[in-house]
């Protein structure tokens, strides 16, 4: 029986052909009274208008959370969310955190131990003990 090679079909992957931002919503919470929210309040006033205008694909909600530290929560299309406490941070530090939320995939953080990671199958195929010549003893 002639061995037929399988046709490789391009798999749907984010970024191939189209890119869908994983972050769908960012919630921003602040407190009017507490000092740890000073940077957050400044951020909402000064930097958020520009940031939100630059990212129309992300929904932003701003709401107070009295007597709590300020927090930015990213919500992702995989259903997960990523909260970051931004207490006592300066507006530009918070901007960095928001960029992080925007760029994150929403996946749980994993420890990367292998130098190379790929979803492409190996060209050599999977090793099988029943095939090939084996090792002569």
């Amino acid at each position, binding site marked *: 029986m002639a061995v037929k090679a399988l046709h490789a079909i391009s798999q749907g992957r984010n970024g191939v052909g189209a890119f869908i931002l994983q972050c769908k919503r960012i919630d921003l919470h*602040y407190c*009017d009274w507490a000092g740890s929210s000073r940077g957050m*309040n400044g951020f*909402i*006033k000064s930097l*958020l*208008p520009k940031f*939100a*205008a630059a*990212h*129309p*694909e*992300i*929904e*932003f*909600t*701003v*709401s*107070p*959370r*009295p007597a709590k530290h300020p927090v930015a929560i990213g919500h992702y299309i995989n259903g997960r969310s990523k909260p970051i406490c931004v207490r006592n941070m300066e507006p530009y530090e918070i901007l960095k955190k928001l960029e992080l939320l925007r760029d994150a995939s929403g996946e749980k953080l994993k420890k990367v131990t292998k130098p190379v990671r790929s979803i492409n199958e190996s060209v050599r195929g999977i090793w099988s003990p029943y095939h090939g010549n084996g090792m002569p003893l």
Partner: protein
Amino acid sequence: MRHLPRLRGAVSASLCCSSPTHIRTTTAVAAVATTSSSSTKTQSLQRRTLSTSLPRSDAVEAYTPPQGLKPPPQARKAAVRPDKITDPAYEPAQDGLELEEVGGLDGWWENPDNYGVGRQWVGYGPAEKITDPAVLEVAVYRALVEAMVARRQMNTPDTTPARDALLESGWGPAALTATTVQTKLCGGSHGTLILKPTEDVETATAAEQEAEVTEEAKEQLEAAVTPEQEAEVVEAKEEVTAVASERVAEITEETKEEAETGVASGQETETEVKEEVDATEDSADHVISTEEARALLKEIGHEWKRPMIKDLIYKYFVAKRIYKLTGHRIPDGKLVAINSGGVLLKEIVKPPKAKKLAEEIENKQLFQSLPNVKVFPRRVTPIDKEKMVGRWKVIREELERRGLPVIGTANIDNAIEKKWVTGAK
């Protein structure tokens, strides 16, 4: 019984000696006296001793209450005897739990009959601050004109009563505001604010021409004027402004004109001045409406906003006048930075700072054009979240159907089963 030196009494206020050593000695005497004899005998004039005891009954009887303040009823030391009770609905209590609390002096002063009326604080300015920008602008302009008249009068002696009357008078009739505002302010030869000479003034002096010079020519003039000349110019300018301000003086109060001419004649007396001041104060203060203010603003123009205000006393007069007219107190720290009519106006018209971030966002319309930003003025509660997805109605119905509290726990304890499961004791 507690004795504390507390309030300075009405009588003692007039008799009081301000020297601290004197007070100290009387206190010592009072202290010795209170320890030696009963407190009623040793009531010092300097310091009244207060006690936690009940009011003296003899004092209550002999007392006629002054204006408005009602003293509390005399304390009752014994209950009314049962046979003297006239109320047919009275039923004696069988045990302590049935006893009702009657009377008492809690919230005694909350009743206006007891507290008296007319105890509100009366400040120098109006009770309510004026916030309408148009009215404020007219008020500022009027203050600038009147303060300038007052400032100019400082060179002539014996005008203090008239000046104080001018600075401390209220809005006066509506016509007064209108005519005061007709007086024009403009930049003088040095870029400072002056009263603009009127067209009907025929005395076309050199100083008058200088006062009318435009901004472009100002610099050339400044370069040309030496310090000696400067003093002359100032004097000449005063003459011109004197003529100009006579119109103001005629209308606002005759007193000022009299005070000015009084320098020459020296016949006016202060009593006359005061009488006329009283006469003007009798007329009710008319705070102009927004429409009136807008009409006046067209006359006023914007010429007065640019020229410099440098003189400190003038600034003080202006601040005082503005406080009287509008209720806006300009703090001294801000007075330093105010150097023109425009800056002054901006300082007063400035809306109060928003206390909450949501209010500020609302005021500044920060996210008006952004459809992807939602701002909530208060905390988004779990109920709000349910409402947003339209689930709250269902939850409410289901909870009500089961007879469970919709909001809160209705003081129901934690489930007892939890203890069984967790094994907690």
